[in-house]
Every structure is written in structure tokens, then in C-alpha cells.
């Protein structure tokens, strides 16, 4: 289960609405390498993960990713507060607005709705951990592209924080992979008597 704490993992207070930024920031909410995908990937994989260390890493990183979903939602939400009709039309966010208003809809910046087809849960601990390490790198790249396109320091601060977390998670998954490899390579004996 989960318990909600009424604060963000990293505070977000964006003073200036910005339709263009809102339009691209949604990528890390519901895009292919975004935070919703990360949560679903790790929460699904944990059931067949081996070793207590790797199980804990999947469970706890997934939990942190939930907080990142909330942060990206917060960024998009605050960027859309107080937009004018002209700003909406000029930025092209109007095509989103006609379908969702200012509601948060899990989709990529291109408008493609979120789909579980962006992730995998293979039931093979080594395969899954490689997928997770790749996922963290892909998310890091996306944060870097978002940072390239952002000048607002109120938006840059949380983006830089989130980028750092991708690097830390990549490191933890790498360590989990080492532990899982060692576990799988060590001698096992199998007891087939039913208890």
C-alpha cells in the first residue's frame, strides 16, 4: 500500500504561465520515457524480481517515481494557470485545450496518449533490470532536452532535480543487476519435496 504525504518531493512554484513550456513538459508526465511509464514498469516488474536488494530497489524507486509523476503534473498545471486565449493559440496548446481544457491528460508532447506499449515486464530479472537502466537513461536524455528548451528558473530547478534522480536510479539498478547476476551465478540446489 501507499501513504500520501501532503508535500512535493521538491517544491515547485512557477510564477509565469507559459503555454509553450506546458506543451513540452507533458512529455515527462505521459510520454514514452515519462514518469507514469516508470512507475508502471517498476511496479509490474517487482513481482518476479529476485534477491531482496533488487526487489527493494524496484519497489522503492517506483514509489519515488510516483512523487515524480506528481511533480511533472504540478509543473504542467502551474504553467497553464492564467494563460490568455492568444497565448494558447500562438503556442499551439489550443489543440490540447479543445480536448482536455487544462486537465492533466497522460500523453506525450506530440499528443499521443500514454500506452503501456512503451514499457516491458519480461519476468526475467536480468532482462528487466537492463530495461530499467535503459529507461533511466532515456528519461535523463529527455530531461536534458527539456532543460535545453527552458529559460524559466522556476521550471529549471525541478527539472535539474529530476534529471539527477535518473542518474541515481540508474546507479542503483546497476548495483541491483550485479547482485542479481551474482545470485544467479552462485550454486543452487533445488529441493523438490513439497512442504
Amino acid at each position: 500500500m501507499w501513504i500520501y504525504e501532503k508535500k512535493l518531493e521538491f517544491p515547485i512554484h512557477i510564477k509565469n504561465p507559459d503555454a509553450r513550456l506546458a506543451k513540452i513538459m507533458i512529455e515527462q508526465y505521459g510520454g514514452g520515457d515519462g514518469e507514469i511509464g516508470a512507475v508502471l514498469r517498476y511496479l509490474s516488474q517487482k513481482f518476479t524480481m529476485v534477491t531482496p536488494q533488487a526487489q527493494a530497489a524496484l519497489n522503492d524507486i517506483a514509489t519515488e517515481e510516483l512523487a515524480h509523476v506528481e511533480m511533472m503534473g504540478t509543473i504542467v498545471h502551474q504553467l497553464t494557470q492564467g494563460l490568455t486565449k492568444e497565448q494558447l493559440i500562438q503556442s499551439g496548446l489550443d489543440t490540447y485545450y479543445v480536448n482536455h481544457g487544462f486537465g492533466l491528460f497522460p500523453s506525450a508532447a506530440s499528443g499521443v496518449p500514454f500506452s503501456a506499449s512503451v514499457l516491458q515486464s519480461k519476468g526475467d530479472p536480468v532482462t528487466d533490470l537492463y530495461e530499467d537502466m535503459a529507461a533511466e537513461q532515456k528519461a535523463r536524455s529527455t530531461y536534458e532536452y527539456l532543460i535545453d528548451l527552458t529559460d524559466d528558473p522556476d521550471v529549471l530547478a525541478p527539472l535539474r532535480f529530476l534529471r539527477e534522480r535518473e542518474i541515481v536510479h540508474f546507479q542503483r539498478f546497476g548495483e541491483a543487476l550485479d547482485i542479481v547476476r551474482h545470485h544467479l551465478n552462485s550454486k543452487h540446489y533445488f529441493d523438490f519435496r513439497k512442504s
Partner: protein
Amino acid sequence: MTRDELLQKLTEMDFMAVDLALYLDTHPEDAEAIAAYRQVIAAADTLRLKYEESYGPLCSFRSDNASDKTWQWIDAPWPWQKDFNPSMAGKECV
């Protein structure tokens, strides 16, 4: 301490706890990290109590105060609302 300062300090402590816990998941025998984790948790608990005393519950599960007549959880802004948070512009690690 102002509310913003208190919230920021608590956020820092809780973040350190999250980060240390992830490290400990793959390094469960690192005594130095366990000691640091315990120190951070104790500091965060003190700050959390202080925050909740003045600004209301942070967790619906265990923050109810017996002296309150109404359900405080729905009072005060939500974290995704601008007013809840201080601006962190330029304060992140670069």
C-alpha cells in the same frame, strides 16, 4: 523559522532519507549509511511535528490531532498548488 523555511528544511531531510534508503537497498550492511539514515529520520521527525503543529497535517494516516473538532486534512492548499510551495529558482544543485 518561516513556513517556507520549515517546509524547505523538512523537504531536504525527507529527501536525504529517500536517497539514503535507496542506497541502503543495495548496500544493506553499510554501517555509516545506516547511522546517517537514523540521524536524518530523527531530524525529519522533529521538523515534521513542528510543521504540523502550525500548518496542519502532512499525512492523513497518522496526523490527526485529538484536540481538533473538524477534519484538518482538507484545510490549507494542496502541494500542486502554487501557494503551497516556495520558489526553488537557483536553489537546486547544479
